[in-house]
């Protein structure tokens, strides 16, 4: 339960950060911010998966 609620909350906080970047710097930095965030997320997921594979 807590896991899903936490993910929803973090997603909303990331969206809030995106809105702030968009309002402060415009669409292009917001798109870059979103892209960078997505890449970091993929990177984090990959690292976590690798760690799990190593522990197995």
């Amino acid at each position, binding site marked *: 339960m807590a896991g899903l609620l936490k993910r929803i*909350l973090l997603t*909303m906080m990331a969206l*809030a950060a995106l*809105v702030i970047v968009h309002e402060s710097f415009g669409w292009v930095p917001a798109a870059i911010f979103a892209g960078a965030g997505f890449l970091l997320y993929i990177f984090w997921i990959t690292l976590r998966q690798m760690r799990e594979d190593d522990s197995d």
Partner: protein
Amino acid sequence: MISRHEVLISLYGAWRLFIRDPRGIEWFDDSIDGYWKSFFCALVILPGYIIWVALGSGELYQDVGFFRIASVELIAYVISWVAWPLVMTYIAPAIDRDDQYIRYIVAFNWSAAIQIVLYLFVLFLGVVVKVPAGFAAFFAFFVLIVVLVYHWYILRIALEATPGGAVGLVIGELVLGQFIRGMSQGMLH
């Protein structure tokens, strides 16, 4: 997917609790499935929330674009629905109320329907009936007290919290809600 029957039964349970009937808790589905279904109340009351926000925050939205208002309010709405149940996942075990957690969150979520009706009534008095500002402010304060007492009662019945503990949790939820509201209003300026 939740059925109309389940929605009506849950809303009836929230109403029974509002009129201080402890058996109101029996109308809720306190299974894991019922837990997630209770978040459907966010969709049920969304039209009322939109009216409340649109009419109640007129001055706040001046010179702010629609996209920004919609995105900020939507984010704040989702966060406000998720934050307290998440906080309670940590508090409930700490106060030895793990077993009552689901029942409490189900009742708390459905109680939002009663609360939005009360807030819309305050709005109706201020915007449509146009009662004097002083009276509207007094009535808004009165409704706030009613809502807080309602939450306190849900905590007592559903979570089986002690009277003092319930007061602390009511204040905690109020502060968290005001914090989210303040952050969202800050994002609009």
